């Protein structure tokens, strides 16, 4: 299962970007914490609809879960339509967000 974390930079040591649609990039990881890579978010500087396009981007990558700070209604609707679940309120580094997500889900995740 793939996880996307909205991030200010491409590594697990980067701080989470609290914005979903306008984050600098997404760090993609497996649910066991293995980092698969990162993708820049080309929608960061877009006017309207950045969240919608960012949602489409992660959905097209086959992501199942998004970890982010906050996520607007249009982006949420798009993610929901694609069957991607969202966890908001993430803080700290990307690594910390991934760790606390798997801790909450328990060892089975």
């Amino acid at each position, binding site marked *: 299962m793939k996880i996307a974390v909205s991030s200010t930079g491409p590594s697990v040591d980067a701080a989470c970007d609290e914005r979903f649609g306008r984050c600098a990039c997404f760090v993609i990881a497996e649910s066991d914490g293995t980092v698969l890579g990162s993708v820049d978010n080309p929608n960061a500087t877009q006017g*309207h*609809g950045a969240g919608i396009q960012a*949602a*489409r981007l992660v959905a097209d990558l086959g992501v199942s879960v998004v970890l982010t700070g906050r996520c607007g209604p249009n982006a949420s609707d798009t993610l929901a*339509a694609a*069957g991607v679940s969202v966890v908001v309120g993430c803080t700290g580094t990307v690594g910390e967000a991934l760790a606390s997500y798997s801790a909450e889900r328990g060892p089975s995740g």
Partner: protein
Amino acid sequence: MRIGIASGKGGTGKTTVATNLARTAVRRGRRVAYLDCDVEEPNGQIYLRPEIAWRRPVTLPVPVVDPGRCDGCGACGEICRFSAIVCVAGKVLVFPRLCHSCGGCSRVCPVDAIGEDLREVGVVSGGQEGKLAYRQGLLNVGEAMSPPLIRAVRAVEPVADLVVVDAPPGTSCAAVEALRGCDRVLLVTEPTPFARHDLELALDTVAQLGIPAEVVVNRAGRDGARTLALCERYGVEIVAELPDRRSIAEASSRGELAVEIDPEFEEWFQRLLAHLEDRR
């Protein structure tokens, strides 16, 4: 003659100038049309008190997708510049509030899966008060698509000696839409640093539109020299300076016009009207 009344920012007294000018022209025997294009807050009617005779909803076409026909190719989402339609996981989502009704998505759909629905963005209404014909647009709450509504107000402009267009504040597409086709623009400002900054943006906008502009300074008093310097730099004249009077503010809060209660204001607005008519 069509006069646009605009301001770089809200709250400078744009509607005060527009309504007093309209009332003055009516009192001088002109047939006046007042188009309230400040569609987020059309309050010209508070002061002009027309009897509203008709209302008509303004709708915009938005796409609806037939999921039975759609094959999830994504072409619609690729063409839309506003992310108002998007294809994810083989499903198509429409965000009607973002849609600019360009029709691009239905043109590119290879299987003709996109039809059209009508979405109401606001209401245009109209009425009369003596020799004054009043038209206004009122944008639905939370709605962003004001330019089409402003076009709808402009489209029902009655024949008149003087058309007063109360434009939305600022320099957005909505303001441009309201000012397009005006013979002259009056920019209403105040002698404060913030208002001056916004006036400069508004002066740039009307210069780009190629519409001759003049400035009315409201609540004139201290700090007027800088506004004057700015206008001189743009080669734009200050055609009226209205003082800040408590009696006028109080009258305004009761929905009364300055020209109805203060002979001095009446005289200034008569002069402004004569000046505008001279320039024709």
